[in-house]
């Protein structure tokens, strides 16, 4: 089980990252830094502690840096400054080989647009993580079939991704992450591309799986309803900064500022709007 700690992470995109970083540390905001240095601030002094065995939701609108943040956890993106620690070990110290081992065994990921390999069958996609580790085909197949069944795709193992619907594709994405047998799963807007009914199904399935497997799940979404429904803890991100971290109740009852409060109000306002 892994505790993930993100400590004072900054991510600056642009030429003159050093100057921009200094400005960010002085406390200038995103638009001021952009105007002065031409650099765009992806993350601005983000610190989060993600406890093991829970669903931790990172919520924010597009451009808030949530997808950038989640990619720091498996180092698909390198921070400009700061630390990311797994069980106290800073993963930024890993060399290329150790990083690959870390990715194989500790974190897997589910992507917004599924990111399935179109030239591989459902089964071959699902066992990808096991195969790159060097697990023999027959053993990988057994693991793969088990997870394909778990996500409800029995009988589709020999199909290709282009033969599946969106919901089924994302089940394959989920099975691929589960089959990798890692203790952390990152889900980057995993359900955002699905239509509402399928989305609710998938959320239920995720909660169910979580009960049985107790993985650490970092879930990215732009939808407060989704965040409240599945998250045991929620961090709200705006312009690359953490605005509030708390349980769903905290967010609903004690919004940290106007920005969060507006989200909550809009949500509460919604049922009346339908009547």
């Amino acid at each position, binding site marked *: 089980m892994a505790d993930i700690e993100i400590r004072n992470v900054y991510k600056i995109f642009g030429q003159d990252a050093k100057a921009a970083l200094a400005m960010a540390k002085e406390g200038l905001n995103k638009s001021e830094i952009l105007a002065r240095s031409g650099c765009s601030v992806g993350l601005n002094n983000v610190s989060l502690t993600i406890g093991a065995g829970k669903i931790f939701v990172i919520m924010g609108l597009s451009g808030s840096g949530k997808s950038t943040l989640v990619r720091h956890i*498996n180092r*698909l993106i390198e921070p400009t400054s700061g630390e990311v620690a797994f069980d106290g070990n800073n993963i930024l110290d890993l060399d290329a080989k150790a990083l*690959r*081992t*870390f*990715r*194989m*065994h500790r*974190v*897997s*990921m589910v*992507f*917004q*647009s599924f*990111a*399935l*390999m*179109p*030239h591989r069958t459902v089964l071959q996609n699902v066992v*990808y*993580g096991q195969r*790159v*580790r060097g697990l023999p085909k027959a053993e990988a197949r057994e693991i793969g079939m088990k997870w394909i069944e778990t996500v409800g795709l029995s009988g589709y193992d020999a199909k*290709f991704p*282009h033969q599946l619907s969106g919901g089924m594709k994302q089940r394959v994405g989920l099975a*691929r992450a589960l089959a*990798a047998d890692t203790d952390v799963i*990152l889900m980057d807007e995993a359900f955002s591309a699905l239509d509402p009914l399928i989305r609710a199904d998938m959320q239920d399935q995720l909660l169910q799986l979580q009960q049985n497997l107790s993985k650490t799940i970092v879930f990215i979404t732009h939808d407060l309803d989704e965040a409240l429904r599945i998250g045991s803890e929620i961090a709200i991100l705006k312009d690359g900064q953490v605005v509030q971290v708390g349980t769903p109740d905290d967010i609903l009852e004690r919004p940290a500022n106007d920005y969060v409060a507006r989200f909550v109000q809009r949500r509460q306002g919604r049922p009346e709007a339908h009547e």
Partner: protein
Amino acid sequence: MFPDSLNLSIRGPVNDFIQALVSGYGWVFKAISAVILKAVLYIEWILRGLPWWVVILIFMALAWQSSKRWPLTVVVGVLLFFVGVLGLWDLTMQTLALMLMATIVSVVIGVPMGILVAKSRVMRNITLPVLDVMQTMPSFVYLIPALMLFGLGKVPAILATIIYAVPPLIRLTDLGIRQVDHEVVEAATAFGGSPNQILFGVELPLATPTIMAGLNQTIMMALSMVVVASMIGARGLGEQVLNGIQTLDVGKGLEAGIGIVILAIVLDRITQGFGKSRTEDPRNG
């Protein structure tokens, strides 16, 4: 008039350089020449040694394999038979051998170069202008030095053909790899795939249709070089065309021309089929 006093000619130095290369390092080029010649003669020996109907059957099998369509397979067979009827079989096999050799070397050079260009910005900035030059430089300009370094015959013809035909393969390999869905590569990385596993397991398979389009272009350009290359002593259909022109024997030239066109059609359809089958129905890939 541009003032004469500002004239600067690179003619002298370039000529001296080639001269020095020929006299000082002739043996290097002789060695390279011997290897290429041996390889092409071997291919030619196989193609001309096989009975004509076996060659036709091989091509029909390839056409079927690439397209899974009977009409195309039959058309390929009929067209090649027609080449034989025109009395061009032997010449066609010579041309085919020349072209196959040039294509094989082009693939060996072009695909790895394309991968490097896709992966490295520095390589890209160096290679792309060089490719532009290779594609726009009139082919006679490098045909002559090739002649001086490698002598008359098949070898300079093959080298000139490669220079002419390899750029599209490099460009399209580069394009194919860069076009692979970024998120799919990201996913492979996120699951711990090594650069090699990602290149051979994800990027190259997904770039295959584009690379096949590049191979198709390379083969077509190699074929169009056949006539030019015959001027420095390559045998085959090109020589026949040249002969026809020189003796004002229009019919002879046309016959050989038809032979080249048929070879082009056959090879084009087969390579296009291989590119297409993978995009539309991944089960074949």
